[in-house]
């Protein structure tokens, strides 16, 4: 048998394929949390991205790559638009970040605006007009082992790698990144230094929305190229958990995301190899493993919550310093 069809290679390749939307959403949430804003609306924002990107792709003609790029950006923009509500409420009006994020997920989520748009625009039950396909990078797709894993993925996978590198450079190599970290750790100090705390928080909450929307678009344009209500099925929440696993560091979101990619794809891979278990057992794996990993991360050596921005979840009011 060809080594590239062995279970290890298939599993590794699909871990990357299924983990990629989590990378986008988790890096986005990480940027928002680094500024001190917890956004529990990721699930809702991803669904907004998924539905609007799918809508866009049905109406865009032209070459695949252009339609897909525009549709992905439209998905990101729609999610950015709904994240603005959260930003105004928690940064401008100092509302409770947890309840506001939940409200965003209820508003935009599987029984909210995303479902409404899908209904009104009659998007259900149609195949996508364009979809992300695997690219054979400089003809290396057939290289044993590494070929299918690294050189035969879709454009957004490569985009997610670029994103992680950019996020790393931004956080640790630029002045704005330094200011961002200081806003999340100690907004008082940042304020005294002349950093506009509110502006940083708005900008990074919106950036988080944009990236969550791109992650959502991945669902409706790459994983299952159609539209179903609530199709992200909890990926947004797993992305929030991933930020904690990754100790708020962009490069570690890759590790966590691909781990969950394995759990998401294990069912399909094993079923194709005649392993029969109730589908619910496989389907519940990512959720159960999220709990397990979260417990491991929150105990023992990691107990000091390595990396959590000190001001996460608290509004900053200059007069009440």
């Amino acid at each position, binding site marked *: 048998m060809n080594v590239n069809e062995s279970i290890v290679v298939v599993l590794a390749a699909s871990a990357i394929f299924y983990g990629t939307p989590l990378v986008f959403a988790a890096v986005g949430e990480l940027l928002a949390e680094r500024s001190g804003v917890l956004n*529990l609306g990721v699930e*809702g924002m991803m669904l907004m991205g998924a539905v609007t990107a799918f809508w866009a792709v049905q109406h865009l003609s032209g070459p695949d790559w252009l339609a897909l790029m525009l549709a992905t950006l439209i998905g990101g923009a729609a999610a950015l638009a709904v994240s603005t*509500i959260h930003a105004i*409420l928690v940064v401008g*009006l*100092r*509302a*409770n970040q*947890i*309840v*506001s994020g*939940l*409200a*965003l997920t*209820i*508003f*935009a*989520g*599987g*029984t*909210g*605006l*995303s*479902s*409404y*748009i*899908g*209904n*009104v625009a009659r998007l259900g039950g149609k195949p996508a007009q364009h979809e992300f396909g695997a690219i054979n990078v400089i003809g290396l797709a057939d290289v044993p082992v590494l070929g299918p894993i690294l050189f035969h993925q879709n454009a957004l996978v490569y985009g997610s790698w670029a994103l992680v590198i950019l996020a790393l450079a931004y956080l640790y190599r630029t002045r704005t990144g330094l200011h961002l970290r200081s806003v999340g750790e100690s907004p008082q100090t940042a304020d005294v230094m002349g950093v506009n705390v509110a502006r940083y928080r708005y900008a990074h909450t919106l950036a988080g929305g944009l990236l969550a929307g791109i992650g959502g678009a991945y669902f409706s344009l790459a994983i299952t190229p159609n539209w179903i*209500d609530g199709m992200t*099925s*909890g990926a947004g*929440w*797993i992305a*929030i*958990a991933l930020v*904690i696993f990754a100790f708020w560091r962009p490069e570690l979101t890759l590790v966590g995301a691909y781990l969950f990619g394995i759990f998401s794809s294990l069912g399909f891979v094993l079923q194709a190899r005649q392993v029969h278990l*109730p*589908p*619910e057992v496989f*389907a*519940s794996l990512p*959720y*159960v493993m*999220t*709990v397990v990993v*979260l*417990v491991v991360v*929150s*105990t023992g050596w990691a*107990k000091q919550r390595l990396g959590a921005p000190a001001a996460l979840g608290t509004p900053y009011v200059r*007069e*009440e310093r």
Partner: protein
Amino acid sequence: MRIERRLTTPRWLALAVPVASLVAAFAASSVVLLAAGKDPIAIYLRLFDRAFFASGALTSTFVTATPLLLTGLAAAAAFRMRLWNIGGEGQLYLGAVGASGVGLVLRDQSGIVIIAGMILGGLFSGAAWAVIPGLLRAYFNTNEIITTLMLNYVASLLLSYLIFDSQSFWRELSTFSARAFPQGKVLPDAAMWPSFNIGIAIVPFGLVVGIAVAALWWLFYGSTSFGFKARVLGDSPSAARYAGIQTRRVVVAMMALSGALAGLGGASEIGDFRHVLDPRGLQQAGLGYAGIVVAALARYNPYAVVVVAVLLGGLANAGYSLQGPDFPAGLVGVLQGMILFFALGGELLLRYRVTFGARRAAPPRALSIAAGPAGVSGP
């Protein structure tokens, strides 16, 4: 514009703000309707008619409001002490599993025994599901927002497994058609919860139980030593630890209580309404998540939860019955989300005073105290 913290909140404002946020939420949601070329006023009129005024509408609104009341209390109880139990949805599913299981086991007993058994079954299974994240939070400091939410998905898959992918005790397997089209076993007639005709509507037994629970909760929270500990822990975890309160126990107990309430909501959904474990119906209703909206709009006050549950129950009930081409799915979620947004924005008006105009110099502090007791307010 300037914003300054209020020392006291006027009583009228505590009522006016939630009412105003409801009105504002409907106004804002009409944008979504207008964008789809629909007439918001016509749709809202039909919504309210179908929720409260059409014949039989109030009766079905009460049936929908019952589990919302209980999941709302569950969320309010936990959120009040900053324990973010978002697992009401899953705890409600487990309550439905427990209550229908007990109802089926006790099928040959008298009605009172079955109903009491179902209530206990719902309470215990909901509590058991919530104790998992409770223990993880208390002993490993694991973020309960994520764990309760993940367990919602697991509970939902468990429901599907019990009816669609296994030969479980809950599944009807006696007829050929039931084997081909999976469905749950229907509970015996004696397991149907009673209802009371009050003239304008029929009140389900679960609603009466829910109102009693809300009153008990108020007493429990305000007048017992456990309630006191929970309040201290909610307001200041470090103060609770210095006072020698065993915070872990309180956290686990509060999660169990919160889960028990949501589980009771699941039991009422089976006893008052479905009489069968119906995964699709429960999963589509989203009663647990709606409970969060109820709790937040009620500002975590148990009596207000009763009123808000009936209001939002009407909205949800009308949403199901109107669903179709003129009334797109998803609108109820949009309205619920908007209500929460405006309720949250309204909190600002309760906590802060917003003044317009030029900045005035604050009077010297000593002067305002010297002006007499009227000038001194707050702690």
